[in-house]
């Protein structure tokens, strides 16, 4: 018996089958329906965007790690996740080179400069979007298009000035409003509206989210708290909450961005605080802010608060407080 080869290592001697690369790959899989919806509504351009963003993020990770002599980590799939999400949060009509550059920026500065996977403070895809919008600001209000045959004019009679306005922009401009806005629910739910590449179809996003829930990679705590908070605040201010839930990037943000492990709190209490913060900020920006949409900045702001939240919202350890007699 070849006993000298026995492995002696500390317990536990068995590990769960879930690995970080497999988990990241599952996130990519969960994004496929929403990407497919993007291609369906906005045409093959969407594919170019997705490809360009992935080339930017994965390429940046590979090249920068090679240059700095660090182990190349593209095999963990996290750069692919960032690339796909980056394309999804930008308008469908963005020049491909902007996607490549933003991908490069976010991997280089937001991720690797902070220490690589697990150490970045900000959600890389959203930070990449913020970078793109700041650097090429025209993007913020152009680049959006309506799917063929579903132009804004169909929504708003006599409205033809801005063909690139998203539903939230229309709301901000006062072109649509009032309660209820039931006639908008169906197009918003299926995605037949203007918006960023991956955000328009609530249905496709929810299918992907269901996959992540089924695989137990995410829980409903952050998404539901986030969306619920937005619903409560918008209805307090006389808006139609369902319109707010279905439009813009809320569902994409709540299920796929705010749940990003690295940039959200680690324990349940902290996650709830984080999600409420995201919800409050999103609702306030949408109602009172200068921008029609607030998901991206809300999550980025709350990302910055995570170290603080993690420090103060701590789980109550086993046996704490409860002394004998109090627990019968």
């Amino acid at each position: 018996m070849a006993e000298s080869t026995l492995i002696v290592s500390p317990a536990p001697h068995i590990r769960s089958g879930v690995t970080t690369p497999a988990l990241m790959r599952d996130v990519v899989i969960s994004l496929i329906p929403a990407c497919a919806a993007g291609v369906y509504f906005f045409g093959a351009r969407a594919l170019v965007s997705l490809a360009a963003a992935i080339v930017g993020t994965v390429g940046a990770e590979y090249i920068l790690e090679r240059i700095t002599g660090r182990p190349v980590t593209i095999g963990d799939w996290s750069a692919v996740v960032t690339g796909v999400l980056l394309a999804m949060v930008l308008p469908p009509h963005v020049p491909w080179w902007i996607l490549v550059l933003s991908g490069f920026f976010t991997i280089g500065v937001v991720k690797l400069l902070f220490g690589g996977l697990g150490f970045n403070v900000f959600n890389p895809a959203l930070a990449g979007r913020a970078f793109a919008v700041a650097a090429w600001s025209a993007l913020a209000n152009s680049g959006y298009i309506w799917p063929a045959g579903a132009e804004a004019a169909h929504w708003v009679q006599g409205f033809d000035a801005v063909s690139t306005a998203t539903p939230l922009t229309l709301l901000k401009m006062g072109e649509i409003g009032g309660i209820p806005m039931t006639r908008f629910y169906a197009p918003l739910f299926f995605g037949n509206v203007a918006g960023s590449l991956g955000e328009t179809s609530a249905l496709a996003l929810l299918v992907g989210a269901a996959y992540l829930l089924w695989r137990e990679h995410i829980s409903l705590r952050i998404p539901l708290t986030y969306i619920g908070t937005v619903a409560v605040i918008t209805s307090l201010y006389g808006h139609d909450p369902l319109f707010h839930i279905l439009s813009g990037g809320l569902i994409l943000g709540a299920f796929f961005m705010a749940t990003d492990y690295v940039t959200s709190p680690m324990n349940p209490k902290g996650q709830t605080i984080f999600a409420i913060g995201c919800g409050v900020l999103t609702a306030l920006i949408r109602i009172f802010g200068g921008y029609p949409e607030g998901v991206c900045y809300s999550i980025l702001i709350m990302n910055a608060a995570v170290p603080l939240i993690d420090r103060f919202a701590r789980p109550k350890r086993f046996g704490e407080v409860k002394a004998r007699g109090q627990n019968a």
Partner: protein
Amino acid sequence: MPRGAFRGGIHPPENKSLTSGLPIVPAQQPSKVYVLLHTTSCPLNPLVAKGDQVLKGQKLADTDQKFGVPVHSPVSGKVAGISTVRTANGHDDTAIIVESDGNDTLHESCVPVKNPLSLSRDEIIAAIREAGIVGMGGAEFPTHIKLAVPPSAKVDTLLLNGAECEPYLTADHRLMLERPQDVVAGAQILMRALDVRKCVIAIEDNKPDAVQALTKEAASVPEIEVMAVRTKYPQGAEKQLIKSTLGREVPPRCLPFHVGVVVNNVGTAVAVADKFYRGLPLVERVVTITGSAAAKPANLLAKIGTTAAELVEQCGGVKGELGKVIFGGPMMGQAVFSLDVPTSKGTSGILLMTAEEARQREVLPCIRCGRCVDACPMRLEPAILHQWAEQQFWAEADAYHACDCIECGVCAFECPSKRPLVQAIRHAKFEIGRLRKAAKERGAK
């Protein structure tokens, strides 16, 4: 929280079907046994010398120290020597080596106790110590110490732990199934020793046959309640089991008796019954030989001190390429460097893993997924404790309650990045202990 549950925990693959249907069979007579002279932290003084003839059940070594318990010869035969052996935890220890004569002749001291239930508490506890009984679940904590709770503690319940939540192991399962009368008899003696009128026998609900057998056996003893608890690791951890069965949470840095409970393993109850009704000190136990690399898995009644090699050999040896040998279960057991290591009183199983199963997984950075936090039954933050340990910030690790960790392995099992969390936390606990001791010494001066 529903009865029978605690927060956190995991469901690792059970793999118990390898042996759960196999009756306990007596192991072959070992050629020799290694009787370790430690059991707990106290070294023992040998009472025999090389060349002496000894009988089964004869006391071989003892100590005056409070925590120590004596050891007895599992076989009859000749003392071949007293020398150093490598034990399961990798340390060197002294052992009395007894060569078996194959007859198992019983020593005269091994006589049943008459009317054990009429003995006083102290007499029972003394007899349990004299029989060398320790916790059979793996920790080997001396049972007489557990039973001698301070009078101020107001213990009202004896909790018998039949959860057997470690994957693969079925030693306790088979004991409960095949010897329920001894579990109940042992429980009654332990209740007498604690002077309590209530006993709960907790069994995970993946062993309905054991629940049934014990419920039937205990039907005539109204003080004993058999309770099925949810199958979830680490259900068998003392604090978690108390929470599941009685709804009480043992506060940090406290022992079960602080909430009025004393926990003993079902195997320990059987050892107690053996002592009082058969006169046998603790010299044998059930060991589950199992794992994908075990040719013929089995539940063996083995003499304590038999080497793993002898036990594995009579189970058909090794199948395939052997990668790892574990004493105990896969979650908390000890990987040993060689099959020549002898079993001890707490060895509940020998798990043989194939080279493929034992393969080391690639360690990736923490992605802050929170799985370890969600699953930790002590509700700690293992990922953060690991960070503190990596940076050697021991005071911070202490402030994040590293010392509450029960080393159940749940966090490391769950981690998708396969980080060595338990190892790091154990290191932190060690350093914190050193710092505390140093602080105390400074304070004393």
